[in-house]
């Protein structure tokens, strides 16, 4: 982990993408040669409903500067309603994290379908810029030693 003054510092962003929409959207962005910042590390999950608060907080604890969770648009879930249940959990989690003082913009959510490659590239750019402005994550990062 560097500091903001360190020119080499690049934000590390963990992206949890659902297999059916957002991951396919990311795939399409790649196939279509859309440019987007290489700061995200993608983790593929079956559904945004699979994402638990543990995973998001574990990413932050392990030193991720930002987290992006992305799933299908409401109504388009492969499992009918996984993202609708998830939406309630995410809304509460993001509010709770802001309540305890995690900077708004560290943890982000989006709905991206398999055909929205351009939107995917756009969201990644937006998230990377937001996190870059916030600087390296310090809150909730566990430092060993």
């Amino acid at each position, binding site marked *: 982990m560097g500091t903001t003054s360190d020119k080499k510092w690049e934000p590390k962003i963990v992206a949890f993408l659902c297999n059916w929409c957002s991951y396919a959207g990311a795939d399409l962005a790649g196939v279509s040669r859309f440019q987007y910042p290489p700061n995200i590390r993608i983790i593929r999950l079956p559904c945004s409903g699979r994402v638990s608060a543990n995973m998001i907080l574990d990413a932050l604890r392990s030193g991720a500067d930002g987290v992006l969770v992305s799933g299908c648009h409401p109504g388009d879930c492969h499992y009918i309603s996984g993202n609708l249940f998830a939406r309630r959990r995410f809304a509460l989690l993001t509010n*709770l994290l802001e*309540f305890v003082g995690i900077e708004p913009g560290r943890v982000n959510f989006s709905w991206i379908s398999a055909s929205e490659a351009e939107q995917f590239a756009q969201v990644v750019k937006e998230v990377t810029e937001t996190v870059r402005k916030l600087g390296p994550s310090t809150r909730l990062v566990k430092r060993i030693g």
Partner: protein
Amino acid sequence: MSTLNEKITEEIRSQAERLLSSGEVAAFLGYEAGSLPMTARPFVARKPEDVSRLVWNSFCVLNLSNYLPSLLKSFEPQRRPGEPPPEGPLPKVGVIATGCWSRNIVVQIKENQVDRERVVIVGIPSRGMVSSRKVKDLVNNREILKVIEEDHNLKVSGSDFDQEINRWDVVRDNCLTCVHPDPVIYDILIGNPSGERQVSDRFEQVNDIEAKTHEERWEWFTEAFSACVRCYACRNVCPLCYCPTCFVDDSRPQWVGKSTDQTDTLLFHILRAYHCAGRCTDCGSCESACPVGIPMRLLTKKLNKDVLEMYQSEAGMSLDEPLPLTTYNPADPQGFVLTERSEKGGGKS
């Protein structure tokens, strides 16, 4: 002239004796006097002779519904996983419930932890429980040897002082902002329901913190929670925490470190509160049990506020309504989602 609490104690004893001696219940869950002033401990009466130990006072701060699932299970014959439950009725358990405790029982019934048929709920409209920490602060932390409770006053005395305290001045914060003091479900009611309480703003403490900047909130959070010794008393007294293996005890994957490192402690408190989302009734047991006075209730209160505002739901108010996180509405607010922001004008959900 006996006090209100003495009358309630009498009533509890006679109901418990009737239930136990008629064989309607196999055990009755209530309180007995603790060994120190301002303490009351949960007590299971199993014989009619035990009922004389039952008491009721303003120091019954631990939520009795916490003990209900395990007590009910103790009366079931042992069976292997997947084996069907035995046929025929199983023994019942009697339990005392105030407003928040009864709402926790409703949550437990909805989560299949408690069988409504097997509990006899003795409802008591709550007058608010007293925070022993507040009393100690009022007498400048001198050692309290005796506390006599009257209807509206507490007579506190130690070796070198006698002080009379207005009960309402030392009632716990969660009771001060409680709007549902009456039990929502009961089989027997002791006393008269007091109706919905009017509170000017029950989320005032939460709003005060929300009004701060994120730097101030982080400072508040780290400072208020750094004293935590990870004793897990808040988890153990919580009637919502019945998982056979808690996330803090998981080792593969280990979601939360087991040390008192600041990050581990803060993560524990975030996740503990988050697991209570949409289920917490703000009974205040967690804060009452905390040995170092951490205001962890504010986190669950914040979640309660969001659940009420976004999903118009309050935990345990009815048996029919599904728990807010086990259901959804296609029109749920989603202003926090990046791709929905431009259309919705960027507002926070």
